[in-house]
């Protein structure tokens, strides 16, 4: 038997299980017969050979969707009838019952492994068989549990060994064929990263944003005139209403109104300078100073206008 170290986790389980004696199974009639025979033999030979007995061997291949794709039940020394082919996503499940061949009591062996040996390369992969107190052993080979790239033809062997029974057991189950790796993506990735090519990479060309389409110059120029044309409408309408330069005479002659008007013009000029050269902080600084003048002159001008209006209204009131 190969020397295999029991993993820590498994060892812990074994240590916990050690003090408890295996529970007794209800003896079956056929086994009772052999038991009596064995007892008879025991009386003659004090040092009888004790070894493992395996029963209820069940082998199954289950697809990733949970559907059973194949499997069979075996009698202990028997092998698998056919060579099962296993897909990468499939789960291989092996269960059996471990007993002491002599006493027919359930045994929980200290070491229990399922060994997969690659027939081509000879590489071995060891899976731990989980054995309960009742002697029920179970091994599952699935994409989650397999930590190696298993692919190709494999021979399955079960190895059992414990202190209470001097003879270990090696049971050749048969062989399976694993058709693809358990982790296809991982293996594909490693294949590509393995081949690193040193050399010039394709040149990266920067494509700048295409400039917006500028409308035709004649159209824009024509529409400058069209957009300005309502000024003619405005002038025409106001002249038709009798707002001629002559009627504006008294307003123009008033200093306060002129001052108000000039501060407004100055404000608009400031905005024009803001558009062309000034930044917003300079503009706001100038605007703060200018707005005081605009407020004062505006108040003067509008109160003058109001006074004139009230005087006129009074005049009209007297006339009426």
């Amino acid at each position, binding site marked *: 038997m190969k020397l295999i170290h029991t993993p820590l986790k498994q060892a812990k389980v074994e240590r916990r299980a050690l003090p408890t004696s295996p529970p007794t199974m209800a003896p079956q009639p056929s086994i009772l017969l052999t038991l009596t025979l064995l007892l008879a033999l025991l009386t003659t030979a004090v040092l009888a050979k004790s070894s493992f007995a395996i029963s209820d061997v069940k082998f199954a291949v289950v697809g990733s969707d949970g559907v059973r794709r194949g499997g069979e039940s075996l009698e202990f020394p028997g092998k698998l009838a056919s060579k099962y082919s296993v897909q990468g996503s499939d789960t291989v499940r092996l269960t059996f019952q471990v007993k002491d061949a002599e006493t027919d009591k359930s045994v929980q062996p200290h070491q229990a492994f399922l060994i997969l040996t690659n027939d081509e390369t000879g590489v071995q992969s060891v899976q731990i068989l989980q054995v309960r107190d009742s002697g029920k052993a179970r091994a599952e080979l699935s994409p989650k549990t397999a930590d190696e790239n298993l692919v190709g033809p494999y021979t399955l062997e079960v190895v059992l060994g414990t202190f209470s029974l001097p003879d270990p057991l090696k049971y050749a189950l048969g062989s399976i064929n694993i058709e693809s790796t358990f982790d296809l993506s991982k293996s594909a990735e490693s294949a590509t990263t393995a081949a690193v090519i040193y050399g010039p990479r394709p040149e990266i060309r920067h494509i700048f944003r295409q400039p*917006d*389409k*500028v*409308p*035709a110059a004649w*159209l*824009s120029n024509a*529409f400058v005139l*069209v*957009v300005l*044309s*309502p*000024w003619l*409408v*405005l002038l025409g*309408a*106001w002249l038709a*209403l*009798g*707002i001629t330069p002559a009627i504006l005479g008294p307003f123009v002659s008033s200093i306060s109104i002129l001052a108000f008007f000039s501060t*407004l013009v100055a*404000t*608009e000029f400031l*905005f*024009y300078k*803001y*558009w062309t050269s000034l930044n*917003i902080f300079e503009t706001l600084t100038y*605007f703060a100073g200018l707005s005081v003048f*605009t407020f004062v002159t*505006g*108040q003067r001008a*509008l*109160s003058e*206008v*109001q006074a004139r*209006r009230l005087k006129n209204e009074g005049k009209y009131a007297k006339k009426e």
Partner: protein
Amino acid sequence: MNTLGPAIQKLTSSYAKDTPTTLKIIDGYLIYILLSGITQFVYMVLAGTYPYNAFLAGFAATVGSFVLAANLRIQTNIKNSADFKTISPERAFADFVVCNILLHFFVVNFIG
């Protein structure tokens, strides 16, 4: 349709007779602003929105001016004086000027 012609005639004649001159001045200004906005919009439809901030600034200027002028017209209308007892026409004009200055500042800020 027969009554439409006389109705329009009556409308225009009563407008010419009953509307004060100051309101007519504002109306002329409103028409001017309206036409300016419409022509800018037509240009945008024909030539595309390429200097988009310029279009928005110009169009917003016309819309804002129209709204402010319409408010000025409402507040200076003598028939509405009962609703605006504390607001004299001069006070309304001062509001109009202040709001226009602010509007122009935003428009110029936006024009780029």
